[in-house]
């Protein structure tokens, strides 16, 4: 079966008042049917930009090059009408911060049905059914967003995302603003739905611990690039790129004596996309950097000992 999503050499550059911001700088991705890809990285590394670009939802002035094939069709070359048809039907999004993502003056049910109507089908409301599915109860369709709690809003967003039976679910930090317990509820819900419907999912987060049981594969992003990608568990347990290492280390394993009274993290600041360092963008913060790192901008390449694993690091290639 061919990939649900196939992204090739994607570059996304924002035109902002302070100049061009290269937010995504050459990303390749694919997601197989039924697969969940976890995308992790620090704030500002371009995760949301990438997600938004998948449905061409970035501001009109943004330059996008490369290709994004969703179910075989290139999103970037579609006409407006085609694009509208592809949105939500091929791929839908569960956004972060349901607070602002729902229109405060429209009923939840309307907002769900609206998506279905936009795609021509269904004169009968399916909102109730979908809300039931996510455990909210059909009656909540008559509520306005402010009448729901954070977790409930997130559930209704999931219901909305399922409205047109998409192939791919893009979840952009769907649990970040939520409390631990609610977060666990939502993750469980997403997991069930994905499994029941055989959905593919792109799961974006900055919290690696969330990915440990959600993602089949994990990609780690840094400064607009993917710097490591591989099978979920393996990557989290044994990351190869120094950045991924630092990232995984900063989530302590409780009970693990090596991290007791030993908080670990990464020195230095995240890079400024306007002013990226030369060579490997991570080298100023890298504890194991060698001279070469300042000049060589390594591309993603297969790691020697794990064929599913690709890493963009000079050292990893060498070892």
């Amino acid at each position, binding site marked *: 079966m061919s990939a649900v999503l196939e992204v090739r050499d994607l570059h996304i550059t924002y035109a902002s008042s302070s100049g061009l911001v290269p937010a995504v700088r050459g990303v390749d991705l694919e997601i197989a049917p039924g697969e969940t890809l976890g995308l992790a990285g620090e704030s500002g590394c371009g995760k949301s930009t990438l997600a938004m670009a998948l449905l*061409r939802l970035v501001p*009109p002035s943004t330059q996008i090059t490369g290709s994004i094939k969703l179910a075989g069709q290139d999103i970037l070359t579609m006409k*407006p*009408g085609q*694009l*509208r048809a592809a949105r939500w039907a091929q791929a839908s999004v569960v956004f972060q911060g349901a607070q602002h993502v729902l229109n405060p003056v429209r009923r939840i049910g309307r907002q769900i049905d609206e998506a279905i109507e936009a795609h021509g089908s269904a004169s009968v409301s399916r909102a109730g059914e979908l809300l039931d599915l996510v455990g909210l109860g059909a009656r909540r369709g008559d509520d306005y967003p402010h009448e729901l709690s954070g977790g409930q809003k997130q559930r209704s967003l999931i219901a909305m995302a399922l409205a047109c039976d998409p192939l791919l679910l893009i979840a952009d930090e769907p649990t970040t603003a939520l409390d631990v317990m609610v977060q666990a509820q939502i993750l469980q819900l997403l997991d069930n739905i994905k499994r029941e419907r055989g959905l593919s999912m792109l799961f974006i987060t900055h919290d690696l611990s969330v990915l440990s049981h959600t993602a089949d594969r994990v990609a780690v992003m840094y400064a607009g690039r993917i710097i490591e990608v591989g099978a979920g568990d393996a990557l989290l347990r044994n990351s190869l790129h120094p950045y991924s290492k630092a990232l995984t280390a900063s989530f302590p394993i409780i009970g693990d004596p090596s991290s007791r009274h030993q908080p670990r993290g990464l020195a230095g600041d995240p890079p400024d996309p306007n002013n990226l360092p030369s060579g490997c963008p991570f080298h100023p913060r890298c504890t194991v950097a060698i001279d070469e790192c300042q000049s060589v901008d390594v591309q993603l390449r297969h790691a020697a000992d794990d064929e599913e694993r690709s890493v963009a690091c000079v050292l990893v290639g060498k070892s």
Partner: protein
Amino acid sequence: STGASAEGELTFAVGVTQDIDSLNVTVGFLVIDYEIWNLTLPTLTSKAAADFSILPSMAESWTSSEDGLTWTYKLRSDMKWSDGVPMTADDVAYTITRSVQDGWWNHTTVTGNLTATATDAQTLVVVSSVPDPKLPILDVYIVPKHIYEKISAEELPNYLADDNVSGGPFQIVERKEGEFIRLVQNPNWFGKKPAMDQLIFRTFETAEAQYNALKAGDLDAVDDVPGKIFATIMAGDEPNITGIAGNQGSFSELAMNSSCPTGIGDGHVALKDPNVRRAINWSLDRQLMVDKVLNGFGKPAVGISASANPAFDYQVEADQTYSYDPAKANALLDEAGWIDTNGDGVRDKDGVELKLRYFDRSVGGAADTTPFITGFLKDVGIATDVKTFDEDSLAAIQSKSEFDLYTWGWSPYADPDNMLSDFITAAVPTDPAVGGYNDGNWCNAEYDALYAQQHVELDPVKRAAQIQEMHKIFVNDGPYAVLYKYDNLQAFRSDRWQNFERQPAEVGPIMFTQTSSAYLNLEPVSGDSGGGGGTNTIVVIGIALVAAGVVFTLVRSRRKKSADDRA
């Protein structure tokens, strides 16, 4: 258009810039009120438009007793009020008696010293306590007894006079406050029938809007044309419009607080000195103000007009008394001891600056003279502190005599007595709650004596001489700097109406006069069919259609646009 209404009724529409304040003859006092009363209330006798000489009206004839104190009037027998109630000597007697009892403002100057009895329906006997030159004209409006006797003295000031009972050539049929008043012919009117069936006075906020309505043909005549525009009419720029600059004695003055010893107030010490007042009179360039403020429609004056009839004016030309002579003003001020000792451009004396509180009337004829006057005064070293007030606030200040200078103006009646009475000592305000008409806060025993004499002088020649003498005292002592007599600028559609009667002859206006007889003599120009309202309606409909079209197109184009999408 109102030139002719659809039913072929002949309408005469007049534009006015003043709204009626009250139709109640015991309360109202605006010129427009008088105009309506002239048209709806009868008088015992009438006055010739040309020279104000006496004419019969309700009374057909009158005779006087030897001593001139008793007058017997013979009234017409065919008179009826518009509601059909007979109009008799009883109405007249009632009006005179009641007006004295209740102290009706518009009546008592004439009736105050009279007692009247109706010996029968057609005979009226009037007895005066003193010889009275205002008889036999007896110039007051007669009210319908059957209406007024139902209203108590207490209620009367609030009575709106909306009974519409008329004893004049017209009767009121409709009134919209601030908009218009509509009158139609009174079928029971005993005098000459007017040519028009209805008479409309429409109120405009600005003289200009009103003039434009005349030009557009919505009006037949207007009172109060802006001076600049009037000049173009007089220059013949408007073939269908004729302008009449009529003068009936209205004048504007700068009042000075002369601080009469029997009065109250806090007038500036300098103004107690007649020489300072004279100096102020000399400092004014009256001709410039006539040219600039009145656009030449008026003439400089130094004395008041005692009457609408110029025969009662001070018969001395302006340049023989006060002309524009700043040097003379300066000399007088120097002489009076007001000298600019500290070099600040303002004269002073004993540490008191010659700086005068100047109260400026916010509306009315004198409005635009203030910038001129203050300039002239500055030129002779008199500073002013100008505050602008509306008439009523100004009247309150005047009642307290707490001013130095202020601007005001008057329009006299036909008989000079009323105007002259304002300057006697008894008219000086002594209680702010009551006030008084002597707004120069001025008194002069000689003037008082002469006033008393003319008040009872029956010989017109002698009386005229006494009045001249009063003028002389008043002008010489100068509580007023009279500025000018201004013309009433009126215009009418000469393509529609003709035979306008001026009052007084040659110099006077045609409307808003002492008797308003002009309306009775007006004649339509034959063949006139009025202005065209039809075209306007077509324009409206056209515009509505265009607007609808625009909206439709907008909506359409919006629909189309929204079909396209943002990429």
